[in-house]
């Protein structure tokens, strides 16, 4: 998948002085390089298209099109090609300009063989790393998609069928079962239910590609993802007799991704429900404050001890004390944190053990 080290690096040298070209060829002789040359910018650019070099050396001062223009045009063709500019003596400012325009390094004339070899080595390595990063990113994306599909079909669907049949069996045998047998069913259903929740949690996490998130941002009201989250958690809230109160006040729009923000609120409000006693209430308040939309999720639950507070958003962390929570929330809060950060927002938590916990999500208001 990535370039093997036995492949020759391709180098193009563009310089109007034959002397420079000859000495470069001489210095690199015997190395694992495939080298082509050109005596002016236009010829050089033509060669770039055909030869597809890894590295281009270009003299800044040439008749015809300048080295700067060559630099620009090479990167327009392929931004991963490494360009090193050869500058005249005492023109460091041109070199700095070139680097600001995308050149990787500069080589002032006259240069020693060692200087030339060193720059060549570093530049070739740089290209190799860039191509490797691109390949790895692509691979990761493919794996992520495949993993989501595999988890859904090979793990979740069969488990779902198992649980459905368990429900059916319990329903049929309800009247004939002893208390002990009912207990067995409850235990099995609970464990399978936990596994399903964990799988769902993982699927939601996999689906969020943090790097691509900003690309899909649209103006929206934070009330939408909050309402979606509340709807998602309605059954759980009902089962525990917990009242969810949602107060919103003058909400200006933010720029973001509705689906991943729903994920954030599913995790935070879900967390509030899990750690709340039955028949308590969870309050969500959203309002504008300075340049931010601030959302507070307050519960009346057991709270989080101060020593656990700084770790709440670490992946895999689940507080040592307190009630058993359904599996999966360790990951959820860590992802929620990443998503909020991708929105240029911040999430924090305050808690009083025994009294309750408040999660605070701040998101910047959209500047129209």
């Amino acid at each position, binding site marked *: 998948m990535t370039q093997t080290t036995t492949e020759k690096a391709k180098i193009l040298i563009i310089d109007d002085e034959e002397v420079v070209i000859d000495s470069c060829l001489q210095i690199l002789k015997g190395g694992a390089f495939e080298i082509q040359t050109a005596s002016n910018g236009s010829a050089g650019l033509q060669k770039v298209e055909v030869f597809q070099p890894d590295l281009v050396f270009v003299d800044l001062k040439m008749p015809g099109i300048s080295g700067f223009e060559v630099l620009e045009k090479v990167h327009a063709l392929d931004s991963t090609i490494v360009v090193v500019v050869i500058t005249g003596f005492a023109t460091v400012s041109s070199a700095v300009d070139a680097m600001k325009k995308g050149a990787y390094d500069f080589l002032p004339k006259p240069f020693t063989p060692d200087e030339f070899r060193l720059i060549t080595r570093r530049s070739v390595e740089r290209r190799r790393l860039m191509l490797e990063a691109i390949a790895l990113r692509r691979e990761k994306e493919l794996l992520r998609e495949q993993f989501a599909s595999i988890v859904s079909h090979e793990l979740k669907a069969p488990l779902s069928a198992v*649980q*459905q*049949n368990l*429900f059916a069996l319990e329903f049929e045998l309800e009247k004939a079962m002893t208390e002990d047998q009912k207990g067995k069913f409850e235990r099995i259903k609970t464990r399978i239910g936990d596994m399903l929740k964990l799988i769902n949690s993982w699927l939601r996490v996999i689906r969020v590609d943090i790097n691509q998130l900003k690309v899909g941002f649209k103006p929206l009201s934070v009330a939408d993802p909050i309402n979606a989250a509340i709807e998602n958690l309605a059954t759980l809230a009902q089962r525990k007799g917990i009242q969810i109160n949602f107060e919103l006040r003058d909400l200006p729009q933010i720029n973001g991704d*509705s689906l991943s923000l729903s994920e954030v609120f599913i995790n935070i409000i879900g967390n509030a429900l899990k750690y709340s006693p039955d028949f308590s209430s969870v309050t969500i308040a959203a309002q504008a404050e300075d340049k931010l939309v601030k959302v507070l999720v307050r519960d009346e639950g057991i709270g989080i001890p101060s020593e656990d507070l700084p770790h709440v958003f670490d992946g895999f962390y689940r507080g040592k004390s307190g009630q058993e929570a359904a599996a999966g929330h360790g990951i959820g809060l860590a992802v929620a944190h990443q998503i909020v950060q991708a929105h240029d927002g911040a999430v924090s938590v305050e808690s009083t053990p025994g009294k309750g916990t408040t999660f605070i999500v701040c998101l910047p208001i959209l500047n129209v």
Partner: protein
Amino acid sequence: MTKKLLMIDDDPDFVAGIKAILASGDFEVDVAYNPKDGLRALEAKQYDLLLLDIMMGRGAEGIMIARKLRKNPKLREMPVLIMTGMREQIAFLFPGEPVHPRFVDVDELVEKPVEPKVLLEKVNTLIQTAEAKKAEK
């Protein structure tokens, strides 16, 4: 009167579980394990309710059926219980629409697996609601 139900879902074990629960009510349940057979069944017989797996196969093939129902004036009136693996997948497939898009006149979304009492309650309610709507016309 026995109500006629059609279930379209590609997982035979899951279907068996649902059928077992529905057996306790006054229902006659036909099954189609793929969209093509499902559409054929809908054309051949009049059903009081459709149970539809929206995420059939690898490409959410159930959506195709839902769209066909929407376009057919007669089938539109039939209530549909939409079954999904994950509620959010609906939002994923219909970006911009609320989490419960109305495919047909009377429908509802449930997540798999479905608890027996919930299943029976929703099936009965959907059938009653659809019948009431039809009576209004």
